[in-house]
């Protein structure tokens, strides 16, 4: 079943295609001709030492680098064949959910955190539609049961792990095409991490997920494909099983076995 799903996804055109992506922060070049294909409805992990460019690449996809002074992006990135640089940045970001290292709920109630984007983008016609989207999103994020009797409590009253799941619920409420996660578990304890990882596995049935993680064990646990970045270049990408048992490139081997940092 899993194998047939894998084959089916491999046959489909890639969700994201990047070719020759260079990123500069002022004079400093952070990415060097990065080329990558991301399959649909799979989890792709980006790994590599600090400063290798994995988060920079992630931020290229929803054009968050556009808002950084002095940052220049060159090259070619498409989502479903559409050049992201020809799209309106706000419209593009509405199609892409993003989850950050530290949970960043709005200073509003649990309900409002999920409802906010839905209202802004006019995705619900009626109050009951909105309620349904909020409930469905919280349920997908595995949070509905824990917060059902306190939807109007402040989001900050939740634990860190719950806040992160709320952020995921907030992202999926907008029915994004892909979800970007930048070290989503680095501030969480092992139990909260396990819940998020479980959620990632469930969401990957419907969403394309890109996750940046410093934990190689996490990349090995949650992803179908892994991409290894080093010094701003993609060194190797492949099936996660292959990368963590028999990487093709020496640099990958050295990094994942803790021989280079």
């Amino acid at each position, binding site marked *: 079943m899993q194998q047939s799903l894998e084959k089916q996804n491999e046959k489909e055109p890639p969700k994201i295609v990047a070719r020759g992506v260079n990123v500069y922060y002022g004079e400093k070049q952070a990415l060097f001709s990065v080329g990558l294909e991301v399959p649909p409805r799979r989890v792709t992990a980006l790994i590599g030492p600090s400063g290798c460019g994995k988060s920079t690449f992630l931020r290229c996809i929803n054009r968050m680098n556009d808002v950084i002074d002095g940052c220049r992006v060159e090259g070619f990135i498409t989502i479903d064949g559409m050049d992201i640089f020809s799209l309106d940045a706000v419209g593009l970001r509405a199609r892409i959910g993003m989850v950050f290292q530290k949970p960043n709920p709005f200073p509003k109630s649990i309900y409002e955190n999920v409802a906010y984007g839905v209202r802004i983008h006019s995705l619900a016609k009626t109050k009951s539609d909105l309620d349904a989207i909020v409930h469905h999103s919280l349920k997908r994020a595995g949070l509905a049961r824990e917060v059902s009797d306190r939807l109007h409590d402040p989001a900050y009253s939740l634990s860190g792990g719950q806040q992160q799941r709320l952020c995921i619920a907030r992202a999926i409420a907008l029915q994004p095409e892909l979800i970007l996660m930048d070290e989503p578990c680095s501030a969480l304890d092992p139990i909260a991490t396990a819940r998020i990882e479980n959620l990632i596995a469930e969401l990957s049935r419907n969403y394309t997920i890109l996750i940046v993680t410093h934990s190689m064990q996490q990349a090995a646990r949650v992803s179908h494909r892994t991409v290894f970045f080093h010094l701003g270049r993609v060194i190797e990408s492949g099936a996660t099983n292959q990368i*963590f*048992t*028999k990487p093709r490139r*020496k640099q990958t*081997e050295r990094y994942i*076995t*803790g*021989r280079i940092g």
Partner: protein
Amino acid sequence: MSDDPHHINRTFDEELSRLHDMLLRMGSLVSQQLDSALDTFAITHERDARAELMDGIAQREKALNDLERRVQEMAINLAAKRQPMASDLRTIIVAMKVSDAFEAIGDHCASIAEKGSALMHSAYRKHFTEIAKPCACAAQMLEGVVSCCRKWDESLALKVWQKDRDINALHDALLQEFSKFMVKNPNSISSVVDFLSAVKYVERLGDRLKSIVEALYYEADGEIFAPPPLKPPLKAIGKGGGKVAINKVGTKKSDANKSGNRAS
């Protein structure tokens, strides 16, 4: 072991090195066990020398059991603490397999020695020195295995892997020869059965050595070992100076080849 530079965490290097040293120590002990096991089939032995021989075998068997337990414990601890990846993961998994195989080979050697010792007073004892042939093959395999453990050599490993077929061929030929021998000498049945079970232990020992080669191949290459096209096995029986002791019965070369084809 990987040829890569050291781990950033040097204690991990030290732990892997200790694991590797324990495997080499096991290989050395097994090698001594095999020599001693074969010695028990020597025709003449003083009573004291034999007791010393058996005592040495018992001590080494205990040491092998102890080392196997330590390798397994260490491998489990390393897997839990270090969460190894890629070549480190393979090294640890293979260390468990190799230590298990070395320990089993040690057991087989002890069983061979028990049979050799039990046959000490057999009237047919001089015929049983034929066990030296499969034992010599096994010793060559073992030497190659220990060498590959020390430093991986794919071409040597493949030669060692193929050598198991020679042991199988020798085992089958001896089985055939001594079956006929028993028919002609009904009084020998009890002794020959002991002898043939010792030969069977050598054959099993060869299988274990072959499995170590396969594990080491996986460690080095990252791929599950795929058997290469096989050359014909050794034509040792009944050829030139390689006749079995009871050469009255003789063995046709074709018989040896036929039986050898079941290898692997």
